[in-house]
């Protein structure tokens, strides 16, 4: 193979335009954490299984440890750093806080972004839908009951005070 190939990409990251040049094998998680300094995105299993690295790509919950950075060329990417606005937490973040839906916190960014995606597609999910969606993310502290309650609480907050 000759000179290392790099690919110019442009994406909207947390509402701002980002131009970057990435090697084909660069993962989105590495672009976010190492290039952009957005370390709120966690790498847990590094197998696209645990959900800690979940970010939103054009609204879809996406494993950033298994998505090449260039796959987000032209897309809108949202990380946990992109949720709070004007000094106010997002309703999902508020709900996780109110329900004590985290212990060590490592899974929390991915959990919150998974919940954001769920509530964008289903503003009033039932428990079965919440469990189906959130079961894609693993909490090793096993705080699942509070997480389910937090998603229900977030749905209520977002219905009552739409942003």
């Amino acid at each position: 193979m000759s000179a290392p190939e790099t690919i110019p990409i442009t994406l909207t990251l947390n509402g701002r335009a980002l131009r970057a040049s990435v090697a084909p094998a660069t993962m989105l998680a590495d672009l976010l954490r190492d290039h952009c300094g957005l370390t709120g995105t966690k790498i847990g299993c590094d197998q696209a299984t645990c959900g800690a690295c979940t970010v939103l790509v054009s609204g879809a919950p996406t494993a950033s440890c298994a998505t090449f950075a260039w796959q987000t060329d032209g897309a809108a990417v949202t990380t946990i750093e992109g949720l709070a606005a004007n000094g106010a937490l997002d309703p999902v973040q508020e709900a996780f806080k109110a329900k004590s839906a985290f212990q060590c916190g490592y899974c929390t960014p991915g959990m919150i972004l998974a919940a954001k995606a769920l509530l964008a597609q289903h503003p009033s999910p039932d428990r079965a839908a919440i469990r189906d969606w959130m079961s894609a993310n693993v909490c090793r502290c096993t705080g699942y009951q509070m997480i389910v309650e937090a998603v229900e609480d977030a749905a209520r907050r977002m219905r009552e005070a739409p942003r």
Partner: protein
Amino acid sequence: MRSAGMMRRVGDMRTIYGSHAAIAPFRLLRPARAEEAAAALAEGGVCLAGGVDLVPAMRAGRRVERIVWLGGIAALKTIERAGGALRIGAGVTYAQLAGDAAIAAALPDLAAAWRGVANVRVRHAATIGGNVMAGNPQYDMLPALMALDATLVFLDARGRQEAVNAAAERWPQGLLWSIEIPLVAGRRFAFERSFKPVISLALAADAGHARVALGCAYERPLCRTLAPSGAAPEALAETFARELPEPVSDWIASGAYRRKLARVLLTRQLRALGRP
């Protein structure tokens, strides 16, 4: 691209382990047209759509010189009713399949089955074509398509289309372009996945016919048509299971156990669909 005869072995777990940092450098092609993608495949490129199958394999050490990304080809992502069939682009994701109004109207049992496949991240990334072409006998889409008597349409480097039944022994070379599922009045579909990875069973049945496909039990999914008969579900399933070739024996289960489950699951699903 793999041919149908080059399936991965049942129970092959090599692709589960490895870090993304271990992925070897590769070249990237991002065609905008399907014909360009087919030409790139003919020259040795490897397709990537959702990456659900290929990326874990690359973590585990599979070296790919050139990736042909299909995500930029809009024509692969469409779903339409065409005559008496539903035409689904190979790049349609599971989430699209589970949520599409045309599929929900024409094949509600298929849409419902796909709402329960994998997790929500996988459902938003994984494509139907990727699942079929991965050639993994544990995967779900090919048994479902075989039972539904679907046709796979491939595109070669010159843009010519060639169609083949999903249950055919050999498939054409080229890019999987679309999947056409015939719409048959009164046909019901059931997909039993509760015994994976031992076995999976897809069943499509109408008043006169039933087609059954088994996943996880052979080097590639196996499909059989049940002859019209007035026999009870138990008797039909007994005959079906007895006449099966010997299923794979591996660390997951013995062939004898898989054969027994084929009988049990077919009985259960024939009863559930209310078809003898």
